[in-house]
């Protein structure tokens, strides 16, 4: 039931909206297929990011894929947090790590979700940045991967989605957007800091690929 509901929301409504109205194109969305579980790590420009990525997740993984979002915004009251669960399947985490309180630890929350067999959509930049600029990745994803080495990370670079709904703006406008999906990365012995660095490099490499793609047209 939940799967069917999410299928209609993402694969019919949101997908029509993003591909036909907004003009979103995925390059390499097949790379989401064939994994039991995965973590999508993407750059973050707008509130539309998580929804857009959900439209490309394989059907059978839809109900088990959960975008990670900040609790102070999407959980500011019960209604909003219910709606964001119902329509977006969000996992809410606090922005700051509370070291003394284990239950509120964002890494612990994400870890629990992963251990239940779910996949995650993560934005390691932490907060939305300017379109075309990638902020340094936060180390949280490294700590999370250290505990879940069997789960692959799929790097994603979204180009142009910052123009759809920029930070500090309420108007959603169509804008041609391209989303590059990279190859899955597995981690074996790397330290959390190294893992974070590698993921950041993978996303930056996709950004470079998008720039090259443009140059070829010149």
């Amino acid at each position, binding site marked *: 039931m939940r799967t069917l509901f999410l299928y209609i929301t993402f694969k019919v409504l949101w997908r029509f909206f993003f591909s036909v109205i907004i003009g979103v194109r995925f390059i390499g969305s097949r790379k989401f297929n064939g994994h039991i579980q995965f973590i999508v790590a993407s750059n973050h420009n707008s509130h539309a990011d998580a929804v857009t990525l959900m439209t490309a997740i394989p059907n059978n993984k839809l109900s088990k894929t959960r975008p990670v979002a900040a609790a102070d915004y999407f959980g500011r009251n019960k209604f909003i947090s219910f709606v964001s669960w119902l329509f977006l399947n969000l996992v809410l985490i606090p922005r700051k790590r509370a070291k003394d309180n284990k239950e509120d630890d964002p890494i612990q929350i994400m870890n629990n979700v992963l251990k239940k067999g779910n996949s995650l959509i993560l934005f390691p930049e932490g907060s939305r940045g300017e379109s075309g600029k990638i902020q340094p990745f936060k180390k949280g994803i490294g700590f999370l991967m250290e505990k879940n080495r069997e789960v692959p990370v799929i790097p994603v670079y979204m180009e142009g989605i910052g123009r759809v709904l920029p930070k500090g*703006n309420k108007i959603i406008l*169509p804008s041609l957007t391209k989303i590059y999906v990279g190859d899955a990365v597995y981690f074996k012995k790397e330290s959390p800091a190294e893992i974070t660095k590698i993921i950041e490099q993978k996303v930056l490499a996709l950004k470079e690929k998008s720039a090259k793609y443009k140059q070829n047209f010149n």
Partner: protein
Amino acid sequence: MDKLIASVNLSGEIQMVIGVILGILLLSSLLFWTWGLFRSSIGLSELKTRTKSWWGMATLFLLAALISPIITYIGIGFLSFAALREFYSVIQLRKSDRAGMLWCYLAIPIQYYLAYMGWYELFIIFIPVFMFIWIPFVLVLSGETKMIMTSMAGLPTSIMLCVFGLSHMAYLISLPSIPGFDPGGKGLLLFLIFITQMNDVMQFIWGKLFGKHKILPKISPNKTWEGFLGGVLSSMIIGYFMKFLTPLEDGEVILISFLIAGVGFIGDVVISAIKRDMGVKDMGESIPGHGGVLDRIDSLSMTTPIFFHLVYFFAY
């Protein structure tokens, strides 16, 4: 099914032109295919991609233009929308222009609804008068004056190019029928698009075969005098033989074809100049081999209003 076909109801003239279009496509596909058997080159593969895209565009257009008028209005409206979206994705605007851009998008359904209603007086002034006043005011309301002049010029131009011009195609369908002229608005629409696109193709072919003297080397290095003149001449000849799609006299149809060819060239180089300024080769990548929607309809955005008003002047 019978009912649907009966409701399509195409005049003999239109059926013939559909045959001609499919014939041209079939012939060129066959030509490039046999050519490819003997020798393969990179230029040929691009021609093949382009022909393939022509098949897709022709099918889509014929379906949208001929099945039912409602689909035609919506289809051309979506074309405007896709062109405008491409335009805004390429040109650089300020964050404070977003409200203005939203109004420009909203102008599309209004303009096409006016075309659908057939309210000519409002249709013809809605964008050049009302939006021309409203858009700069919305920009002023944003409170940011740095570079506002560029936006005040760019946004109205964007809807003139992508919405106002193209919406005349939709109004062709709304024109009252003339007794004794069977093809009607559909015929005129078919004539306009056929001549405009054939002119593009002919300028390309003549330019490839005989092109030597460049017209505007800084803007469009592939445009030559030989290509342009060959294209204009071919368009006039093709236009003369397609006269049966219009309610016009011989001289009028030749003049209109001549103007379509000339104005098509203007539309082409104007969009080219914008692309040069923004440092991109194509406006988009939605049509393989051609670029974006706006790369394909650059000439159409200017030939449409010219064609419409000449026909309106001569025949209505």
